[in-house]
């Protein structure tokens, strides 16, 4: 497997003007090595936990807890009828205590506090550990757990992931590998986003033969405290945290307008409609989508004067409510034809 390209000494300007436009991942070693949180982690897990707990609210947070038998692999159960772990709730401080309690166990439980919103739950943390590169509208989240394997998935964001404590291996795949990753259900997922059914660390090639092709385009990196990874929009990633005490802080952001609705809703409507058409009709709709939605042949409106392009070509914020109402009214129409 190929290692993800690494760059050091990258300036913020280079990051935004050179790296992001390529839409390729990059490792930024030592990007946050000067954070007090990272320095505390380098002294030890207790020091790191104490440092972070100081900022934490008392509010109970959702945690995932898996039996030792799952070996940290949070996923579906074998029959795909539920999950192989359970949910609980703890304050950040109590959760640190529970995590530390597992340190000496021969067969520790797997424990994860995922995507803790830093702004709301770790008051003042960001002032002392300032954001690198990530734009001001990026939202920081913290991920705290022991040795875990988080199944391959992708997010509708760009991502800068910074390791504070422990060691994390990211294995990543470009978005076009979707057909080789055997993505699981959309309506019911362990983490809010669909995940690959293939266990990266123990793949069943008989059941998932195309995963071998995905592996050919996979890249990986081991991140240590202070290191960061930039992951472009919708890149698939499997994340394995390897020590007893791992903390990641990541920034998610998207440059998409906020008023164009969720692309998942558009996907759902198309899955209802076009996915259920005869194959020869689907093929043709794909050509139409490639043209109008995905701009495969360039701007589909270039030859039409702006006043005649219609409300959907470059939707004006004033038209958003009207467009949404139109989509809703079409869905309300009783099925006919």
């Amino acid at each position, binding site marked *: 497997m190929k290692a993800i390209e690494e760059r050091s000494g990258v300036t913020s300007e280079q990051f935004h003007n050179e790296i992001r436009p390529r839409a390729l991942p990059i490792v930024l070693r030592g990007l946050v090595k000067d954070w007090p949180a990272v320095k505390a982690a380098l002294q030890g897990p207790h020091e790191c936990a104490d440092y972070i707990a100081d900022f934490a609210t008392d509010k109970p947070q959702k945690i995932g807890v898996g039996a030792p038998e799952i070996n940290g692999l949070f996923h579906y159960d074998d029959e795909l009828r539920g999950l192989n772990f359970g949910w609980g709730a703890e304050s950040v401080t109590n959760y640190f205590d529970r995590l530390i309690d597992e340190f000496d166990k021969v067969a520790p439980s797997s424990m994860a506090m995922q995507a803790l919103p830093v702004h709301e739950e770790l008051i003042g943390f960001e002032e002392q550990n300032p954001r690198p590169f990530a734009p001001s509208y990026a939202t920081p989240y913290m991920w705290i757990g022991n040795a875990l394997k988080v199944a391959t998935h992708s997010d509708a964001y760009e991502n800068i992931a910074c390791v504070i404590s422990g060691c994390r291996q990211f294995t990543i795949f470009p978005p076009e590998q979707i057909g080789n990753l055997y993505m699981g259900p959309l309506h019911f997922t362990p983490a809010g986003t669909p995940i690959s059914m293939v266990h990266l660390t123990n793949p069943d090639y008989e059941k998932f033969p195309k995963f071998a092709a995905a592996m050919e385009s996979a890249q990986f990196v081991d991140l240590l405290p202070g290191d960061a990874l930039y992951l472009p929009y919708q890149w698939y990633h499997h994340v394995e945290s390897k020590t007893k005490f791992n903390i990641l802080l990541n920034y998610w952001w998207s440059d998409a307008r906020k008023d164009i609705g969720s692309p998942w809703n558009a996907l759902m409507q198309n899955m209802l409609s076009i996915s259920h058409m005869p194959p020869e009709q689907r093929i*043709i709709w794909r050509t139409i989508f490639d043209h109008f939605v995905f701009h495969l042949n360039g701007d589909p409106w270039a030859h039409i004067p702006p006043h005649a392009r219609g409300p959907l070509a470059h939707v004006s914020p004033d038209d958003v409510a009207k467009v949404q109402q139109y989509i809703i009214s079409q869905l309300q129409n009783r099925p006919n034809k």
Partner: protein
Amino acid sequence: MKPIEERENLSEEQFLNEIRGQVKPVVIRGLVKDWPVVKAAQVSDAECAAYISRFAGPEQYKIGVAPFEAKGLLHYNKELKGLNFEWEHADVGNFLQILLDEGDFDNPRGLALQALRVANSLLGFENANPRPSFAPAHANPHMWIGNALKIATHSDTAENLACVVAGERRFTIFPPDQISNLYIGPLHFTPAGTPVSMVHLTEPDFEKYPKFAQALEHAQYVDLFPGDALYLPFRWYHHVEASKKFNILLNYWWTDARPGIGSAFTALNHALYSIGNMPPEQRDAWREVFDHFVFHKHGDPWAHIPDHARGPLANVKDEDIAAIRENLIEQIRNG
């Protein structure tokens, strides 16, 4: 330009396997030559008009009326702020008479009665002029009556069997993958309910629309006479030029898509609104997701998941459609 393939003595099975199954257009000469309406047309325009009027009622329909200057080309106006023709109303019998009368003028207006639903509007016509076996029972017949007109290149969300009853009609057709070479116009406002090419086939402006030259390389054409038929596969683009003073076409539209799943155009509009307005690199990423889940580019996206876990959208059951739609509406309302 290549002529469209013609086949004679085509059996139903051959039509199904060699034509529809191969997604190929085909000309079938004389398919409806025995229709009484065709025989009437071969006597005279007036005879044909009289024959059709027998089935017509007093209901008024929309009539497209273009000034002589439009040269029969029904399209947008020059500024793309409206159409170059107007809508009026007439009943079928009256319209047929107006059309016959217009034939005596040196500078006739363009007149069109488009897509008249035969089942509702010409009671008894279908019994007397039975559908060719190639059109399935659920295909809807529509009648198109007009003088010398050029209908801009467009495509329909249906398969089509088009039968010339009277006059002469030239179809110039393009496969669906020519979409980007056709310079398709606005989606929200169209002359005929479906988007049309901005290029005038009979006098193309290659400076403004250079890629249209490539489209023409893939074009095929046919001249159809009374009794002749053309099968046009789903969403093939077509320009239709009627060249006589009195032209009538009867066509059958049908689709094998199941009812209830909603129109693909609405789904397209949703995607246009949401994904079409994203930054380019995000659009690219969503294209992969759509290719996989919507267009099944890599095969059945659910094959590796047991039935019970595929979720409501994988193999939608008719009885779930209403709930799915309501759920979607709620999601859209919640942003």
